[in-house]
């Protein structure tokens, strides 16, 4: 289980990015972090990954506090971030250095097959399209068989068609080992299509505004009324989260004198 306990992040310049975030994600659960820009969703993800340290509080995987990148936590970034001097196969096996060569090859071949890129092992990253590169990036994170996979707006740079096909690929990959998925997105449709729960964050400082369960059977029909209803619920919460901060903000900065004039 992924546990996030009273996590705060204050940047050196005084900006409070996150305020006391607490969240439990069950093993194998898919959670989407949704929110407007600047609500700290990427910051939260980077702290779960161990790339950044929280100011207070902590994130833990199965009770083990995460201080630095953890072997059982994988991450996929917004950009594919493939190493351009390695072939596709070498990129995928980048985190498999500790395994024997034939096991590496076996996992790479299987991974390529699963994302429809069989035979692409010897290509250079420059020869891939954006969607292909992102698929390689996802399997690079998954071949190490992490318990949790974090995804930071992984499909936001892709066109709508490619995005949908990659969401399906992601779900298919998730089915094999059922890792915990934490997906940061600003796309409500994506959240409803993939997640068991949508966590709506509100900005300044980043907090959890709503925790919406999405109890739809998989595979999900994007055109069904239930899907539309779930989307509507998340959108409504998102609207609320964006309109909320002003009143909240005013309350926080209110001086005693100003408070009296109300």
């Amino acid at each position, binding site marked *: 289980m992924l546990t996030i306990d009273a996590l705060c992040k204050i940047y050196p310049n005084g900006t409070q990015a996150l305020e006391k975030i607490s969240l439990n994600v069950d093993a194998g659960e898919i959670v989407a972090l949704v929110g407007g820009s600047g609500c700290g969703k990427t910051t939260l993800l980077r702290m779960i990954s161990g790339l950044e340290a929280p100011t207070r509080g902590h994130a833990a995987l199965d009770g083990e506090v995460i201080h630095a990148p953890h072997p059982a936590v994988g991450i996929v970034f917004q950009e594919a971030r493939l190493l351009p001097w390695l072939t596709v196969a070498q990129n995928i096996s980048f985190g498999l250095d500790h395994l024997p060569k034939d096991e590496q090859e076996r996992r790479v071949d299987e991974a390529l097959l699963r994302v429809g890129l069989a035979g692409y092992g010897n290509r250079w990253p*420059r020869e891939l399209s954006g969607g292909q590169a992102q698929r390689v990036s996802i399997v690079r994170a998954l071949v190490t068989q992490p318990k949790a996979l974090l995804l930071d707006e992984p499909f936001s740079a892709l066109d709508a068609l490619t995005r949908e096909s990659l969401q399906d690929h992601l779900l298919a990959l998730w089915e094999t080992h059922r890792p915990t998925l934490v997906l940061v997105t600003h796309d409500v449709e994506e959240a409803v299509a993939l997640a068991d729960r949508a966590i709506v964050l509100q900005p300044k400082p980043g907090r959890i505004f709503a925790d919406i369960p999405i109890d739809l059977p998989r595979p999900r029909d994007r055109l069904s009324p239930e899907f539309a209803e779930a989307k509507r619920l998340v959108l409504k919460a998102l609207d609320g989260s964006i309109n909320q901060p002003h009143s909240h903000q005013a309350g926080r900065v209110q001086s005693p004198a100003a408070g009296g004039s109300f």
Partner: protein
Amino acid sequence: MSEATLDQTTTTNAQPKAARFAVFGTSFLLGLVLPVTAGLLYEAAFRAGLVQARLLPPPSRVFTTLWKLAQSGELATHVLATTVRVGMGFGLGALVGMLLGALTGASRNARRLLDPTLQALRAIPSLAWVPLFILWLGIFESSKIALIAVGVFFPVYLGVMAAIANVDRKIVEVGRVFRLSRLALVRRVLLPAILPDFIIAIRSGLGLGFMFVVAAEIMGASEGLGYLLVDGQQLGKPDQILAAIIAFAVLGKIGDWLIVVLTKPFLTWQDTHQRGA
């Protein structure tokens, strides 16, 4: 997905060898047009008695001198002497420049400690060191190699430092996510990432190495292409000076070409607009 685009990339990549060679040949010949025409015109003007060739001998005479030097074995001696000096000075300067550049590029503290001093030293015109080097190291090989090494050091140092400091944070983060040790990060991420810049730094270093070997040999040597230059000046033999200059050009070009050819296999991954040209 976009199979069509992919196939296209592969075809431009796997251009037939012969075709590529033809393109190379054409651009090579095109580059020769200007110097060859100028040489032929001057030769013709000389044959027609239009120019006095005492100070600027025609190409035929320069190449005759070059040929004579080659036949007597003198040219080989001089070329060897110069090559050994450049090789040793370049090796020393490039190695130290690479190590210090990697250190200051990778560690902010090392940069704060070392870089101001090195930049101050860089501001000194390198030839100003000559008297000191001669006092310290004598007039023979050591002082010459030291001077060449100083010339090679700075471009390599600057190039490597800037390249390492400019490696994309996003790429370095990939290494962090996979928990690479510091050494593994250098080996598996930083070094391959800076390779293209490193090669440019090495090439400009070698260029400066040739510049400084001339300076060193002009200031006192009994052999080397620079010696041929001075000897030609003192004995009034412009054809010998020009022959030495041509030898320098060929030698420098071969050195640069060697770097390019030897490193090319490591750069096939690059995604540049002139790839394959």
